[in-house]
């Protein structure tokens, strides 16, 4: 065996979108505002995944304005409608769809006034990127003007949306039930190098293919997958919260080991889009599922490289070398038995 051994492994995964085994709900308010801008108010919780930008894109698309012209009033229980928690890979699905519904209502209000003003069919009116026009006619104006027209006719173009996801509870005896209305699937391949002198494992490449329904912001989806992969890698190889009689031995980041910039692979993302038929946007989610296949893919790759099967995470250098040593013992035994 050479010092550095390489191998590959893969793992697949699945995941449910939004709250589990229950009905999930989210609400939003929308208003097309002066200057052709827009306000969205919803109890959304940006925890870094980029949901505010996703909502701005959805609102921009639905209202025909620019994303940077959207103002989002986010989570304040006294000021914004309930959209519930940041978790369960639910925000794009639940809040994204509620924002889309709210925007559609606001837009329809504006369109009704403008159609009357232009004397065209409401269905002919389209808008994008700050402009609004009637297809099949020469009517075209800025969203700023359109809002002005609407307001001068005495109407504020507002809307609200509530989106529901229908999960059902599990039977307490046999667990049967329909916990989610949308599922996503994923698959990752890992390539590793195992140092047989130190037992260190370096992950050199991850190929991550994930169904997200519809990628609102592909770069943001990549960011979620890359972050999920590296958290999965941390759990696979180094992270370990240790207790001794209830007292932690890993008080700080000197002892609780996280991946640094030198510990991560090249991450190759493939976004697969199988749109959700049960929601206006077709988007599903990616926050949590990205992490699921990483650790088993790495363990399968380690086995491929050196024949050591790690069944207890994390795969520390020490466990790898112990595994190599017991492989050697087994080989010796089998040689003796053969003799």
């Amino acid at each position: 065996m050479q010092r550095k051994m390489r191998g590959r492994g893969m793992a697949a995964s699945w995941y449910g979108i939004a709250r589990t085994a229950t009905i999930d709900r989210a609400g939003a308010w929308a208003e097309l505002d002066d200057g052709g801008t827009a306000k969205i108010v919803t109890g959304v919780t940006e925890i870094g995944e980029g949901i505010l930008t996703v909502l701005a894109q959805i609102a921009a698309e639905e209202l025909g304005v620019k994303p940077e012209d959207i103002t989002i009033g986010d989570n304040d229980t006294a000021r914004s409608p309930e959209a519930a928690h940041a978790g369960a890979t639910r925000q794009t699905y639940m809040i994204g769809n509620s924002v889309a519904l709210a925007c559609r209502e606001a837009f329809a209000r504006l369109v009704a006034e403008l159609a009357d003003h232009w004397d065209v069919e409401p269905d002919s009116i389209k808008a994008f990127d700050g402009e609004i026009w009637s297809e099949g006619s020469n009517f075209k104006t800025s969203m700023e003007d359109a809002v002005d027209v609407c307001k001068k006719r005495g109407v504020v173009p507002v809307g609200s949306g509530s989106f529901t996801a229908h999960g059902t509870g599990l039977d307490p005896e046999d667990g049967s039930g329909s916990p989610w209305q949308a599922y996503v699937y994923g698959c990752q391949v890992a390539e590793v190098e195992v140092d047989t002198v130190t037992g260190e494992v370096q992950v050199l490449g991850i190929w991550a293919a994930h169904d997200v329904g519809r990628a609102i912001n592909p770069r943001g989806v990549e960011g979620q997958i890359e972050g999920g992969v590296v958290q999965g890698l941390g759990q696979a190889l180094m992270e370990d919260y240790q207790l001794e009689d209830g007292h932690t031995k890993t008080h700080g980041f000197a002892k609780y080991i996280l991946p640094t910039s030198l510990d991560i692979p090249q991450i190759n993302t493939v976004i697969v889009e199988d749109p959700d038929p049960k929601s206006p946007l077709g988007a599903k989610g990616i926050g949590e599922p990205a992490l699921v296949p990483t650790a088993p893919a790495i363990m399968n790759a380690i086995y491929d490289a050196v024949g050591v099967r790690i069944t207890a995470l994390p795969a520390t250098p020490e466990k790898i070398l112990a595994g190599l040593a017991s492989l050697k013992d087994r080989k010796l035994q089998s040689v003796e038995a053969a003799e």
Partner: protein
Amino acid sequence: MLTCDQYHMPQTLKEALVLWNNAPDGSRLVAGATDILPWAREGRAGDVHLPAMIDVTKVAELNGYKVADGRVRLGANVVFQQFLEDDTLREHLPCMPYCSVWFADDQIRQQATLAGNIVNASPAADGTPPVLAMNGEIELARLEGESVAVRTLAVQDFVQGPGRTALQPGEIITAVTCDSMAGYGGSFEKVGQRRSLVISAVCATALVMTDPAGQRLEDIRLAIGGIGPVPLRLADIEDKLRSKTISRELITEVSMQPPALVASRTRREYRRWVVRGFVQAAIEDALADAGHPIAPALPKEAEHV
């Protein structure tokens, strides 16, 4: 949380020694301070209040380095990043850039001193094995009446055990001195749980001088750390290699010995496995650094498998 009544920043050695001698019990002398601040936190020492902290980083006599008579005198304020960036230090201490690049990170290396790393006497200290390999000595100053007296101790006599050194009350480390190793190839091997900001489980360093053809080892220095209470110089192995023709077989053979030296109370088996491979890797990497890489081995079983 670390607090103190007095924070002193003396400008001269004399001033520092006077302050240190007169400091109330429990006062601390600091240089980089990169270890004391994390120490005074929950899970370690907790909140600590000190009567005085005496910070020597502005003491002029402790700054800079000097190369003379085959020795390098590193002022106690020399920080790890200098070993990476200073061409003269890289030339004379060829294992130190590799040691430093593994030490903490670029930012902590701007503050953390080699002298501080040694005086903390951690069994996992990265800085001590290279100094040991380079016949390092610790220069200690103290007050004798009105004048400053200096004594020198070999680093193996200075570092006595985990957290224990031969430092006497009132003494301040003024310098670390070592052989100039210009012309040697250097290396540093380290394994921890990741590749940056990491504490050594095991580390090893080598310095080699070959004949111009790279066939024969004129001189070799080897030291290992993380394997027991104090880092070790591998003088026996050096003797077996010195003046010998370089061969992979020879290097492999001598690398079989160090595991017996591993005395750590924890993870002993693991450290034994690693040490054997590390001694071999350190020698081979140092030869490569010297410009005479040993021919790649034919694929074969790693020694411990």
